[in-house]
């Protein structure tokens, strides 16, 4: 496992840190330094609130290498409230818990582990919103 690559991605994986475009205000996730709308440079960091809704979802039974231990699990395209769509695992969900439009929030979970002795990689997943009693 490439330890340095995972370390470089920590900010976006732990806190949903993306970027915002100075020129047109569009929010970008993951950070890519160039605005997808107006092609202007976009370097300013922006931390997403971590809330959004399920745009689409599916269940993975035949998982890629490194994720077999989690299968079956649900993947979703989540439309963040600030605009971008992010692809991520859903967690703490069972069939029937999720439909298109379900409100979800970001949580930090284990993404994968490198065997019994390697590093543990943490990052964002989404789960149905657990509202504070407002």
């Amino acid at each position: 496992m490439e330890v340095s690559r995972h370390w470089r991605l920590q900010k976006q994986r732990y806190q949903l840190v993306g970027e915002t475009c100075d020129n047109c205000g569009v929010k970008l996730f993951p950070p890519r330094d160039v605005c997808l709308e107006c092609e202007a440079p976009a370097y300013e960091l922006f931390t997403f609130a971590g809330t959004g809704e399920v745009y689409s979802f599916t269940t993975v039974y035949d998982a890629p290498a490194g994720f077999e231990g989690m299968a079956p699990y649900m993947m979703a395209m989540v439309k963040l409230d600030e605009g971008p769509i992010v692809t991520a695992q859903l967690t703490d969900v069972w069939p029937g818990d999720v439909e298109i439009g379900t409100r979800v929030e970001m949580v930090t979970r284990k993404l994968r582990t490198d065997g019994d002795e390697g590093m543990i990689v943490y990052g964002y997943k989404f789960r149905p919103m657990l509202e504070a009693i407002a």
Partner: protein
Amino acid sequence: MNENDPIMRPDRPVGIVGYGAYVPRYRIAAESISQMWTMGAGGTPVKEKSVNSLDEDVATMSIEAARNAMNRAQIDPQELRAVWVGSESHPYAVKPTSTIVAEAIGAVPNTQAADWEFACKAGTEAMQAAIGLVGSGMGKYALAIGMDTAQGRPGDALEYTAAAGGAAILIGPAAESAVIINGSYSFVTDTPDFWRREHAMYPSHGDRFTGEPAYFKHVLGAAEVMMEAMNMTAADYDWAVFHQPNVKFPSRAGQMLGFSAEQMKPGLLAGVIGNTYSGSSIIGLTGILDVAQPGDRILMVSYGSGAGSDAFDLSVTDKIDDIRNRAPGVQQYIARRKEIDYATYTRYRGKIKMS
């Protein structure tokens, strides 16, 4: 400062400016464990216990509790000078859990970070250190977490209760606090009631030795010194919470000290979540803070095998009403339960050997 006073009181008044609980979604009924190993014979020490998901460990659970505490306090994470995680199930043997939590809540790099261990009282131990750090003026805020994904040997008495969960307690200046810390006290001896050796998967314990000479001696010892020093009787407190390895021990300890079932009710969660080890007494405290009123007085006593108890005398301020609803209460986490069977539990807890 009176040098003979066993009660620890900081130079500067400090309190709790934020708190956050976390309980995983899954539950296994004690009855399922009993069916598996004893054909359902005999009673069970709790109704059910919480079980962490496949993708949860002490780091991820601490992060969620910490975020709840930070949301309640609404302070800048860059003002934290300590992020301390007490646990007996840290994901790594070597590599701090606390740096992962500090990174995730945006507290790095200008902060202390360390992992604490003292069986079930590592969380309150971190709290006392945080009181010292803030109370001495070394830092404005310090975050103390007690969290566990406790290990229970299949078929052992502890398998019924060894659970997952805990809480984060954010210590800061008294003037900003929802709870004032009037004092704390530690009572420790070398008592071999429960341990886990290096590289061992499951803990060992001294069976009935875990009761009188261990739990009761330390919990009652700590509570009695604290109550006497504060000139308080059980009736003077509104609420009390004790370390809860099951429902019976804390209920009996409270009763022996003169507390009513009503005083212990909001903090006594073991019956529905099990024993969350390092998180056990402080998650109970969050249950009390979720319902406490300004002016209420609280006694909290933890217990850690090996052995020792930390006692805290606390007073709730009117700021509790401002912060309470800024994050989910512990009962909301308890209510999102999903029951799993013994087979699923063995998978989630990594008890199935794949190779």
